[in-house]
């Protein structure tokens, strides 16, 4: 025992390495390694009933540039952008409201925001299904029985339902970073702006909004990235008709038994998201504010 303690006192730097070891090992084994495996698979030959054959097959990436897959990809980007935009539209005022309440009320409101998220994501998505479904969904049934409409509204199995489900799912991820940025804002700056003849609108545009941009950037990324790769929400609320790129990828592995193709799609998506995030980050952080 004494020998071990003496050893560690002699090699101080080892302590740091030892503390990093579990986390690093976990990341290496369960994240980095699988990532490499996926990229490797994208260059291999597919097995007849799934799995891969260890033969180099570079043609897989070429198949990605089929109009079917490209259109799905662009639709997914469109849906993810809509989701992010609506989350911003809804989330920013909410975050602003919460940030301008008294400290005690603030905490209660944040708690109220978080509580639904202790319920399983799948169950919450199914709940929306029961509300939105065309003939048996609660909304349509109620409106028709009250005579307000005589044909059911197309609330299900389309982009509307998917965006709704995604916004509902990811809204807190937009609200919390924006709230954090706004809450940190020096309220004295608002008084200074008013003292210098700024109207409320001008104060928002020139002081509050610019200083909340780091929060908006963080929130946007936290919503856009998972929305782009979503497959549970479009699977349940898309009614089997609307598919996103995430569904196509999961299909390759679970149904079509074409792992290399699924891997190629995944790798491409990942590269594109990384590039897009870097560009977005660089362009907004350059505008002066640092998170």
């Amino acid at each position: 025992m004494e020998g071990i303690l003496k050893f560690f006192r002699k090699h101080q730097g080892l302590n740091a390495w030892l503390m990093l070891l579990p986390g690093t090992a976990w990341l290496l084994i369960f994240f980095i390694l699988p990532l490499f495996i996926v990229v490797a698979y994208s260059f291999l030959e597919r097995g007849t009933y799934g799995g891969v054959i260890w033969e180099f097959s570079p043609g897989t990436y070429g198949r990605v540039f089929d109009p079917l897959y490209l259109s799905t990809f662009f639709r997914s980007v469109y849906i993810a952008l809509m989701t992010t935009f609506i989350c911003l539209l809804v989330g920013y005022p909410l975050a602003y409201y919460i940030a301008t309440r008294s400290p005690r009320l603030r905490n209660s409101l944040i708690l109220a925001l978080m509580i639904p998220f202790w319920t399983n994501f799948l169950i919450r998505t199914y709940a929306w299904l029961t509300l939105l479904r065309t003939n048996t969904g609660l909304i349509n049934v109620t409106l028709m029985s009250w005579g307000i409409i005589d044909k059911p509204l197309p609330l299900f199995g389309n982009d509307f339902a998917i965006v709704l489900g995604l916004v509902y799912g990811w809204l807190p991820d937009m609200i919390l970073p924006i709230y954090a940025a706004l809450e940190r804002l020096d309220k004295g700056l608002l008084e200074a702006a008013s003292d210098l003849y700024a109207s409320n609108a001008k104060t928002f545009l020139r002081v509050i909004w610019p200083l909340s941009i780091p929060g908006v950037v963080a929130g946007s990324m936290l919503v856009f990235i998972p929305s782009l790769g979503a497959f549970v929400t479009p699977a349940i609320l898309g009614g089997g008709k609307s598919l996103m790129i995430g569904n196509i990828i999961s299909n390759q592995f679970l149904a079509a038994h074409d792992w290399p193709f699924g891997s190629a799609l995944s790798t491409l998506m990942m590269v594109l998201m990384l590039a897009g995030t870097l560009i977005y980050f660089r362009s907004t952080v350059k505008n002066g504010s640092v998170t």
Partner: protein
Amino acid sequence: MSGVNAVELVDVVKKFTDVTAVDRVNLQIKDGEFFSLLGPSGCGKTTTLRLVAGFELPTTGEVYICGKLQGYLPANQRPVNTVFQNYALFPHMNVYKNVSFGLEMQKVPQKEMRTRVGEVLEMVQLRGMERRKPRQLSGGQQQRVALARALVNHPKVLLLDEPLGALDLKLRKEMQVELKSLQEKVGITFIYVTHDQEEALTMSDRLAVMNKGNLLQIGTPQQVYEAPECRFVADFIGESNYLPGRVMSLKNGQAEILVEPRIHLWAMASPGISPGMNVSLAFRPEKAQLNALQGEEHNAVQACIQDVIYTGSATSYYLRLENNALIKVVQQNNSVGNGFIRQMGENVTVCWPIQASTVFTSD
């Protein structure tokens, strides 16, 4: 604007949920004067300033700026600008954009804006710093940007909320001189909030002492120092000795005070003093001497020196009187040689002018 006061407060009261921050304050601040609001933390001086600025609205009472009733006007419609205690510079804007912000909001054309910003930066000695961001500036520089940002708008009144609080002593003293000369050059009315009595005495044309929401005394620094109207003012500004006693008689505007057991002293009688009252006789340490003086205009008591504290340019003596009371006398060391400082244990006569004695009721 001659004849009209720059700022006037009439019976202004400001209550927050459970505290009255400003309690029936009446104030007239003259055009072009350097006016200070002085008092301890929580006395209401900052709230009073904010009532003029428009960040708070009075519960009752009226605020006038240049004769015009402000009523419910918000801060962005009042012709005043504020220098905040923590400067409140916009962190995402450089010096130029900070200083020109008010002009931008008033839609001043670009060319005029450039000229005015240049002028005011010259005045605060920050020429060349236009592109810097606040976080790249020292505390003193940030403070000057805050000043420039307010002054560039040519407000009718400039409000300053303890602007020198965050600076070190030397810088603070320098800035006091700079601010005062700036105010004299520019001619704008300054309302200056501080808890530092020395600062207020140095810079102000007139000052008001506040405590617990009440305005206790207004006057020039000399008036407030030489003739404090109540014990709090006498305590807050400078130092005072207090001798408790009873009023024996009044004659020619002076009161005879008996300090137990046998000390008879005279003081200037303030209004409301009558025989039989229990009072405190107050006089300032520097008004007294350790020499016996002839004539009827002085009080004299016998005392024994308890303590001698040498502070370079002056010496402070602590003396015990016959009735065990302790008083302080401060004398300038304006002699040369070794013999002029008294020793501990010496018995001396302490004299001070009757005119320098004030009387406060014991409360």
